[in-house]
């Protein structure tokens, strides 16, 4: 690697600067959505924003933190439940969505104290059990009345159009903040530490990474984000039925979006959410065959594109649009794209690639 030429460490490229500018500009443009698009489009986009939040959060947890969970629906359901509870207690309905997410984030702190001590499979299944437990406990609440559920009737104070626009802006705002925080976090020392832990926990601890504290940051952030998604979902569907919100299906969707898009790539999770959204929009009406297609897509992707769509593109062309890592550039050698160093099982390579030029 060091043969001839100087090595420079590169983070921003022209392409990535351009894409970040485009993303920010796109966000600003989307903020005018309710004035530009029809009601149906605004609703659809709100759903898409929620999917992107969920995919980005699961990706942060599994792809960067190495914490594979099949129980994130615990926070999705709790976020919706907390929002319904707060609204029932008289808190204004839109602030209650955000307060709910923050409260669930706080609750995830004590949960993290226990759960983060578990490793790999035990953590994954343990989280699922936590979700089931949360579901059963929420069922005991008189407001919810078991599986009967409740509704966010406080939304009735808004006219339909105003409600649609406010929900849209809440979702867009939450998306911008959560993705922004995640982007900055992954680029910070914490981001490097969390990826080091993912790749080798003992080695990371040995060089002075505070393992538990670092994992906790990512766990709490993603719990808050998923809770936000749950609260927003409640604002779009209005009715809260524990069975739907605490369904393991949500984890399945998150796994689908992230692995099809590309685990451990910031752009891949977003792409996966868009793909999932499009499949649902185009084929959702065809019922059983839509689900069969969804399953088949997951299956085929896992067989033929194990690094996901974005991961495969990255390998082939070496593109980084939203760079959260660094890469080494060697001067004096013609650039050609490189595959990750060797085939290795386990999480994908950290975001450091060597391109020669």
């Amino acid at each position, binding site marked *: 690697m060091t043969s001839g030429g100087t090595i420079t460490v590169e983070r921003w490229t022209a392409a990535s600067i351009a894409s970040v500018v485009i993303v920010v500009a796109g966000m600003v443009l989307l903020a005018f959505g309710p004035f530009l698009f029809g009601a149906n489009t605004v609703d659809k986009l709100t759903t898409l924003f929620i999917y992107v939040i969920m995919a980005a959060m699961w990706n942060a947890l599994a792809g960067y933190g190495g914490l594979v969970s099949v129980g994130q629906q615990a926070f999705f359901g709790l976020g919706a439940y907390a929002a319904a509870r707060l609204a029932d207690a008289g808190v204004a309905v839109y602030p209650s969505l955000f307060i709910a997410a923050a409260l669930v984030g706080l609750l995830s702190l004590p949960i993290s104290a226990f759960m983060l001590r578990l490793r790999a499979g035990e953590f994954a299944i343990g989280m699922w059990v936590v979700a089931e437990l949360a579901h059963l406990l929420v069922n005991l609440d008189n407001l919810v009345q078991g599986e009967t559920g409740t509704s966010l009737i406080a939304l009735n104070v808004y006219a339909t159009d105003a409600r649609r626009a406010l929900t849209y802006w809440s979702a867009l705002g939450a998306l911008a903040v959560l993705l922004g925080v995640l982007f900055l976090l992954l680029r910070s020392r914490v981001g490097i530490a969390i990826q080091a832990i993912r790749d080798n926990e003992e080695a990371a601890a040995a060089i002075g990474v505070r393992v538990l504290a670092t994992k906790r940051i990512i766990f709490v952030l993603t719990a808050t984000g998923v809770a936000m998604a749950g609260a927003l979902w409640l604002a779009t569907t209005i009715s809260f039925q524990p069975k739907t919100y605490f369904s393991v299906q949500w984890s399945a969707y998150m796994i689908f979006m992230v692995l099809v898009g590309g685990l451990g790539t910031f752009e891949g999770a977003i792409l996966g959410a868009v793909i999932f959204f499009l499949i649902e929009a185009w084929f959702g009406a065809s019922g059983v065959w839509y689900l069969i297609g969804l*399953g088949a897509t997951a299956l085929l992707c896992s067989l033929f594109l194990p690094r996901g769509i974005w991961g495969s593109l990255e390998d082939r062309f070496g593109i980084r649009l939203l760079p959260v890592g660094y890469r080494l550039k060697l001067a004096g050698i013609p650039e050609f794209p490189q595959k990750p160093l060797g085939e290795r099982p386990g999480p994908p390579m950290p975001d450091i690639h060597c391109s020669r030029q």
Partner: protein
Amino acid sequence: MMAWINQIIQGILLGGYYAIIACGLSFMFSVMRIINLAHGSLSIVAAFALWLIADRFEISPFSGLILVLPAMALIGVALQRFILEQSVRGGPLVPILSTFGLTIVIENLLFEKFGADTRSLAPLIGSLSYDSWEIGDDIYIGQLAALTFATAVVLLGGLQIFLSRTHLGRSIRATAEDADTAGLVGVNARAVNAIATAIAMTTVGVAGAFLAMRATFDPYAGSPQLIFAFEAAVIGGAGSLWGTLIGGIVLGVAQSIGAKISPQGFLISGHVVFLAILFARVYISRPAFTGRLRAVLGRSA
């Protein structure tokens, strides 16, 4: 007092059922390090096959197993060859996605074929589904529950002996430990993994039979069972088959006692006990704890 003892006995018997559904899961995890999310829906495939055979040809589910179990073994070989072998190369997470995709495909194809009606094998096994023995006052042991428990002991015990005593069993364990080194000493890892998956799927067939005999099932009935299977396997320590039986019993007894305390207690206490055991393992330093457990159970590493 007798009511409590009865509850514990019923819990132990229920644990036998959990051990059967956890068996294949635990086996595949220990041998191939694969978490098979399609486990539940594959057992429903077996249940539907048994039901179809019984419905069309009036063959009892027990005789039907003679046809269904080899078919499940073949499904296992195909599963390994066409899906698992390929997806496991992408890393430990990829099989989760592929088996998850497979689950959705299986469940919805079953739905497309059989609709949403719930079915059961209970009417097809005569009085076995409701007969019981009375032991002392107020303690009844269901014949089907007893048969389930006995099957669990035979199945898990048989597999444990197979893994530790036979040549093939040793090859399977060697491959699980280090496939490359096993290859160096002449073990064909591909064949061994195919056989191991076939064995796991055979146990899934047995699980499907008991699931369908003791309750009703529909195309989506597999996934709800999966969490119990996972709990039993994890409590028992992933990979240990006797442990899986103990895990099933712990879960069954916890649920059964929880149900006695409160109507909602059945599931809650099962989950709470599961989490409590996980944390106990983490906080009581691992080697000492498992060492003591081993001493109590008198089994070797």
